């Protein structure tokens, strides 16, 4: 059974290999090969899951050593896997949602001439993501970590003839590299501290290390997590990443890859538990991003960018929970899974809307679509109810637990973090209701100005229609997950019992009763919902965005993050490189040439030598030989 772990990664890797090197002759069946191998991986995952359920809690971890990768003295990196309950959870999410999105893409990418490559990249992503969660050491995890970064780069820039897509892809990669720097230095610190970077020994002996080392490792891991999970201050790439095809946004930039940071922190729980400063930093990052993403989500008219803001915010919840330590790990992962369902579903719904609307993304040009695409409307609607935490649906169970856990941290910290989480829930209700109303309700705002546009290129009139079955079926399945997963996990705390052996769990002490917090959550939810309805339901949505308040305008520009980066990093960087290019020519080269000139008149010869080089070379050689002879004679004399 253990040997099957490698096959989990191997199947999609094989698919990527076949699709990317197979050439044009695979164009007609390539997408089905991609789907098949994703499904094979899922099937193996289910098989392993069944096997795991048959064992007792402690004996559930499976390992599989494949080969020695980089052995240099005490530095021993292996390609070996570890499958425990935490990894298993991810495996099922990645391969399950992944397979659905593969199938969805068959329809979505039907008319793209590079569809085969698209599936090759998707398979590559699955392989890398599975490697990330199955590795038994930090260095192999890092391989998967950068592997998903590569897949993300390739898929964001899939339509690279569009400059915006190419720029977004590059930006995502480079911002992620900043995070990767943190992760790689963390591995180095682990190696010098523990002599290894394998999970087992590092985590078992974490408490023996000094506080400074642990805090350092924790903060470096957090930097890595910030990059991959688009947390402040490395969040700026996620919005732009929406340039990628929508299935990519659903799979990579919502359901799976961007949650890798949560995995990393939860996996490294033993380190964080022993480093309270690092933990505090994690919660702060989570809380700030939670609000940041939610505010940005409120201001975006691009449906995908609004959802991207939401993703950022929801991952902020998870990071916050993970930073709370053993009271939060389980709920971080639980929210990660339920979010995987409803956010993937929401993105697929957005893709379906775009599919029916000539790839229009501006919600101000939607409206009243519920009658035109009923399946999309219902599935999107269920995802919407789930994400705002409507009682009984998935998001309710998982998000509520995080809010409670934040309050349970205790002290002032607890009140602040809990308050932020509660406020976030309200803003979530606001921006999601806004998306829902602008897209599916109200008057139809499409097809009007297209006809009136004077002198412009006549846009074809949109004819909103329901997507083909390959697209709607995955949406329906995800909607089921959005509705029932959270409840299912919460019956008898089944998810808690499942994950507890790996992550550990302690119950926190709530400052007020749980019922009060739940009631408060519902009140906040109702307020957010009501405000959104007042603005976007009761009033007509203007087709052109009003100027808006200062905050709105800042939020539209992603709270000025890019402007800041441009001024603080990009511009100085440009000046620096330009200056250096100049200096290299004039100063360094000049100095060396100048030294040469003063030493032996080389510079002058340099010019003359352009014709008589062979002779000069002979002269130099002769000079060398003469030196040698002189030295020898000298030696004889000695």
């Amino acid at each position: 059974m253990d040997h099957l772990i490698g096959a989990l990664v191997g199947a999609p890797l094989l698919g990527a290999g076949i699709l990317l090197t197979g050439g044009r002759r695979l164009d007609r069946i390539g997408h089905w090969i991609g789907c098949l191998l994703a499904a094979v991986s899922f099937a193996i995952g289910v098989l392993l899951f069944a096997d795991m359920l048959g064992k007792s809690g402690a004996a559930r971890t499976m390992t599989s050593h494949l080969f020695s990768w980089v052995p240099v003295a005490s530095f021993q990196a292996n390609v070996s896997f570890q499958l425990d309950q935490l990894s298993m959870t991810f495996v099922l999410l990645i391969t399950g949602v992944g397979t659905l999105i593969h199938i969805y893409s068959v329809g979505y990418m039907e008319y793209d001439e590079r569809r085969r490559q698209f599936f090759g990249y998707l398979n590559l992503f699955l392989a890398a993501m599975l490697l990330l969660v199955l590795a038994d050491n930090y260095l192999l995890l890092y391989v998967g970590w950068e592997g998903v970064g590569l897949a993300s780069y390739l898929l964001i820039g899939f339509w690279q003839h569009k400059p915006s897509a190419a720029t977004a892809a590059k930006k995502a990669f480079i911002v992620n590299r900043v995070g990767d720097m943190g992760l790689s230095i963390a591995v180095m610190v682990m190696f010098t501290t523990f002599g290894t970077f394998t999970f087992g020994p590092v985590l078992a002996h974490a408490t023996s290390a000094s506080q400074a080392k642990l805090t350092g490792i924790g903060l470096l891991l957090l930097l890595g997590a910030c990059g991959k999970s688009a947390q402040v201050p490395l969040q700026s790439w996620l919005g732009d990443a929406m340039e990628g095809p929508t299935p990519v946004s659903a799979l990579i930039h919502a359901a799976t890859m961007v949650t890798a940071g949560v995995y990393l922190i939860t996996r490294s729980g033993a380190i964080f538990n022993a480093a309270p400063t690092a933990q505090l930093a994690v919660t702060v990052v989570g809380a700030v991003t939670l609000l940041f993403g939610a505010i940005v989500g409120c201001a975006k008219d691009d449906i995908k960018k609004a959802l991207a803001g939401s993703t950022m915010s929801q991952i902020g919840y998870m990071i916050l929970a993970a930073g709370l330590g053993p009271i939060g790990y389980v709920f971080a992962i639980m929210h990660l899974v339920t979010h995987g369902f409803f956010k993937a579903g929401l993105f697929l719904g957005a893709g379906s809307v775009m599919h029916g609307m000539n790839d229009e993304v501006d919600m101000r040009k939607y409206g009243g679509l519920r009658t035109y695409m009923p399946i999309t409307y219902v599935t999107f609607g269920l995802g919407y109810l789930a994400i705002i935490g409507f009682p009984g649906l998935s998001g309710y169970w998982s998000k509520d637990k995080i809010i409670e856990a934040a309050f349970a941290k205790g002290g002032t910290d607890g009140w602040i973090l809990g308050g932020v989480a509660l406020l976030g829930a309200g803003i979530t209700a606001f921006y999601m209701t806004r998306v829902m109303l602008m897209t599916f309700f109200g008057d139809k705002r499409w097809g009007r100005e297209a006809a009136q546009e004077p002198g412009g290129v006549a846009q074809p009139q949109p004819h909103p229609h329901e997507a083909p079955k390959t697209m709607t079926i995955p949406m329906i399945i995800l909607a089921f997950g959005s509705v029932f997963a959270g409840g299912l996990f919460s019956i008898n705390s089944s998810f808690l019992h499942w994950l507890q052996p790996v992550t550990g769990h302690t119950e926190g002490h709530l400052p007020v009763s749980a019922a009060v917090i739940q009631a408060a959550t519902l009140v906040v939810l109702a307020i957010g919902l009501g405000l959104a309805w007042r603005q976007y339901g009761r009033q007509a949505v203007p087709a052109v965005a009003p100027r808006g308040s200062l905050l709105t305008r800042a939020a539209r520009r992603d709270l000025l993050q890019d402007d800041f980066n441009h001024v603080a990093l990009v511009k100085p960087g440009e000046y620096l490189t330009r200056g250096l290019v100049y200096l290299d020519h004039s100063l360094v080269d000049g100095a060396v040439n100048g030294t040469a000139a003063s030493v032996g008149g080389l510079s002058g010869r340099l010019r003359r030598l352009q014709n008589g080089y062979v002779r000069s070379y002979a002269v130099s050689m002769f000079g060398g030989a003469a030196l040698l002879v002189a030295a020898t004679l000298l030696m004889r004399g000695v």
Partner: protein
Amino acid sequence: MSSFPLLTLTAALPAVGAIATAAVPAARRTTAKWLALAFSLATLVLAGIIATRFTPGGARYQLTESHAWIADFGVRYELGVDGIAVVLIGLTAVLVPFVMLAGWHDADVLEAHRPNRNWRPTQGFFALILLVEAMVVIAFESTDVFLFYIFFEAMLIPMYFLIGGFGDRAGAHGEDEQSKQWREAPPMRAVVGDGRAKQRSYAAVKFLLYNLLGGLIMLAAVIGLYVVTANQLGHGTFSLPQILQARAVGRMHISAVAERWIFLGFFFAFAVKAPLWPLHTWLPNAMGEATAPVAVLITAVVDKVGTFAMLRYCLQLFPNASNWAAPVILVLSLISIVYGALLAIGQRDIKRLVAYTSISHFGFIILGIFAMTSQGQSGAALYMVNHGVSTAAWLLVAGFLISRRGSRLITDFGGVQKVAPLLAGTFLVGSLAILSLPGLGPFVSEFLVLVGTFSRYPVLGVIATFAIVLAALYVLILYQRTMTGPVKAGIESMKDLRLRELVVVGPLIALLIFLGVYPKPITNYLNPAVKDTLSDVHKSDPAPQINAVAKETAK
């Protein structure tokens, strides 16, 4: 001592090939190409045999040959390989056939107008490449300092002619958009050249003078070494094994001052060759003006002799001076890393950009060597291999791109992905290798160097790690500007890779993946050699604060 002179044969074969190729009549230039290729492939076979006959972990120098040569000066013809040399001979032998295939038509343009009947540029081009190979191989093989010195210097001559005589005709004239036209009727100025030919000549002379200067200083140091050995042992010698042996039994004591001076003489020459900041300025000129295959020969093959020699001669002959100079060298290599990367970002010329990335990568290699840890030095040695393969893959594709457009300016490209997807795809893989993406070879060596450096000098390790962000910048900006976006004018009819070009790139990419996934066969060769070198310099790896591995196994 081996009865069969395998090492001599491996170095002699390409030399014989060079003579044979040069002797092919002018009219039969295709024969000359195939002949040269056949010789390079035969050399590869011999390099493979060396690798199989060598026993990693056995004697330090194996397959040795030793003959008196210039007895009066104690110069011996002594050959022998350690694991690092075996691997680097392998690298050279692997790369040369690809360089030839990629440069298959590089000399054609010079054929078009023949000043006289003996005009044989094709024969010359391929013979020179083989000659370089022969000299590089023997430099890796020799264990006699003087023998090494001769070939270390002599390889400048064929390189000089390769740079100056077969320069980058494509780069000369951005306005000549159709390289196809050139194959049919090359314009005279592309051959004889105007301003560009001058630049090429300048680059070649600069290359020569820089390296000659390094060589001359090294010569003084070589003589100094002779003086020292003559004083200490009663007879002067250049034999590395003899000197090591004498030191092991306590018969060699160099005064600290003398050791430092001699060390500096050696190191200067190697630092020019490597090249190390601030001695790097010849490389961008040379690589920019040479054709892409010749540029690969410079950076991937010839320059490796410099870093190799640091490991073999600087550390082994002058351990105390190496430790003494290490802090300064580490700082210089750190500057190289960051400086090379920043300058690469600022370049407008594709090949100069590649040259600056090489400067950054050589910085990593030297950093790893002088960090004096197992991971650092094994990583550095492995880095030489990975840098060679990755730069070859990247730059050769870049060369295909440049020759198609007839320009090396980044701004002349755009949207290539749309018209030549295979070219763009292979270029991307090369790019990703250069930025050390995990899964491809360079990642392993770069991480080893970083970890090896960090374990002794945490601050230096952290600063060097910044390079991974800078590398992503220079690589991806180049890719974005050339390959993505709308198709630029002059690109529309660009042809995708031909079969010959695919034969060049395909295996290199496969090799990069292999080196990234399973580098163990290579590290098996490197580790014992590095262990010996570290014991020469009396260094052992810093121990971890908590030995978690030992504790776990004790349980």
